[in-house]
């Protein structure tokens, strides 16, 4: 009986310590030190929440940079991936369709297709594009907005995020950031 009570008290105590005190203390400190990030890195313009820097939005119009495909349809209440088997014929067909679509929209983009642009992201909200994937969309956007391709390429260069410390991660652009810059351009 004594051992049961000790086990019970241990469980209850640890539940309060690790399950309540620890997350609440972390919340308090995080809110003070890094308020913006703690709230979800929200993008707020004129008092209105326009999204989060970290979550992709489903840009569809030809005048925008399109993010990577999302199995979650860009809905953060139900994150999802395709979980497709990449060796299956069905999957190869999907990618082939994406490649053809890309070529149709942007003309001749060469034989090296940006892999991230014709595949689906893991989270459903990949906020970034590789530099090649952003570049591949330039002809379409230039036509839709009637601006020069050089201007758009300069925009991509301006918003390029490099590797952390020159080592970690991949060079990329944040699609929402880039599209907000496009909005300024208009």
């Amino acid at each position: 009986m004594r051992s049961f009570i000790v086990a019970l008290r241990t469980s209850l105590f640890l539940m309060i310590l690790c399950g309540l005190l620890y997350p609440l203390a972390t919340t308090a400190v995080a809110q003070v030190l890094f308020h913006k990030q703690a709230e979800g890195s929200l993008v707020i313009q004129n008092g209105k929440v326009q999204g989060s820097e970290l979550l992709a939005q489903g840009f569809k119009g030809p005048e925008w940079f399109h993010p990577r495909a999302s199995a979650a349809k860009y809905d953060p209440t139900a994150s999802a991936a395709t979980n497709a088997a990449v060796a299956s014929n069905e999957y190869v067909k999907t990618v082939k369709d994406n490649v053809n679509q890309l070529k149709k929209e942007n003309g001749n983009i060469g034989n090296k297709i940006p892999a991230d642009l014709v595949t689906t992201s893991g989270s459903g909200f990949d906020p970034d594009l590789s530099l090649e994937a952003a570049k591949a969309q330039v002809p379409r956007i230039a036509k839709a907005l009637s601006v020069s391709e050089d201007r758009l390429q300069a925009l991509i260069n301006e918003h390029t995020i490099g590797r952390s410390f020159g080592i970690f991660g991949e060079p990329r652009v944040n699609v929402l950031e880039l599209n907000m810059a496009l909005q300024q351009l208009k």
Partner: protein
Amino acid sequence: MTMGLIQVVVTLLIAGLLVKPVGTYLVKVFDYETTGLDRFFRPGERFIYRLIGVREKESMGWKKYVFAMLLTNFIMMMFMYVIFRIQKFLPLNPDMIDNMPPALAFNTAASFITNTNWQAYSGENSLSYLSQMIAITFPMFTSAATGFAVAIAFIRGLVARQNNLGNFYVDLIRSITRVFLPLSFIVALFLVFQGVPQTLHGAADATTLEDAKQMITRGPVASLESIKHIGTNGGGYFGTNSSHPFENPTPLSNLMEILCMLLLPTALVYAFGVMIKNKRQGWSIFAAMGIMFLVFLSIVFIAEYNGTPALHALGVHGNMEGKEVRFGISGSALFTAVTTAATTGSVNNMHDSLTPIGGLVPLGEMMLNNVFGGKGVGLLNGLLYVILTVFICGLMVGRTPEFLGKKIESKEVKLASIALLVHPVLILVSTAIAFVTPSAISSIANPGSHGLTEVLYAFTSGAANNGSAFAGLGANTTFYNIAIGLVMLLGRYISIIAMLAIAGSFATKKVAAATSGTFRTDTPLFTGILVVIIVVIGALTFFPALALGPIAEHLGMFH
């Protein structure tokens, strides 16, 4: 690819540099003698022991230790189950999440108490903030601490002169107060700095640039995310786990999560060497684990960079399906190799969408279950193979096998065989049962060999207490919830009980002095034999299943 390689090497170098200092610290944490740490931690701990009624000096034999462990774990699991079932009526539920159904609540409670963190649900729409805190974050601490405690108890048994493995409650509390809590707090703040949310506010309503609505779900994510990796737990706050930008927003958060996963399992192997007063022994086991890890890592790295021949023909190089741009192929491959080696089970890319050979890597690591392995139990599994290796070598040269001067006799070998066989039996039998159950087959997302791998992966992940998934499998059904729930519980506790029984039996054995005829277990030769035995036993057990799954799929790609 060159930059990718550099990232991997630099990350592993940092992890390697941390092994010795952290291992040294761990030895101090579990040393019952007075240490310099006491001045800082003692007052608080003494208060805790009084509060929960633990007699600090009480020593426990192996049976008492096991009993305390099982009882505490059982009570915690009951608490969790109840909370999942009634979360709708409890506070801190801004997004109005409903109660969990019974089978799913059982599966989730079993999953988190066993340090598996298999998830048949998606956190953002199945758990309230309160549940994420007191029924998910909480067992992330205690299951990791339990694993630590039993590993330390086993080591004490190896060197003990009497049946005293320490005190379970003291080990449990100490690992939380001296390791997990302080570390998790600091790492959580770093993750918030990188962009992981930590808030009690409900979802934010956003209107996008194209005037669409977006509900941005968030919550106390960072405090879960840090212990999730430090405790090699792996259960994500969101459905897509560490690929989600709110769980893993930058390459630096990715680096931090990888380092956190590797930190304690590797340091524990070093601590083992120090505790048995033979550092070479610790390093020889470390080397065996390290060699296997590097081989697995190289395979997944190359396989993902190569992609598939059909995509290659389309001009698409490398496999980016289910991966995130900020991590790239290199950061994803490394994460995959680490998360299944350390049996964390968090994913920053979708394992279901790895190339067939790439997907073989996490599966293989979980099948061997001792490439560093999870908090504590990884070392236990490693030592299990050490005992077997010593036994097999002893048979070959015809002398009584010894480990650390203690004779390995029929009782220990029988117990070791039980602990060894539990793992494949659970995996293969339950996979077989699934394939004769129509409702289980209908959950499979991808047809053919890949579908077989999905089911095999699910049960392997459960038995290894890993928790990662080939997530195409629709696992939230009564069959899988109960079957995988049971596999997780049996996979964890049977082998722990058997190993502590071995520790108890070792503890009372006399130490024989080493002679020139003693088979040395701390040499490169032994490391080599150990690797061969692990791989041969693993291959003999699992090759047929692997041949039908990923290997068949790989060969099929070239038709």
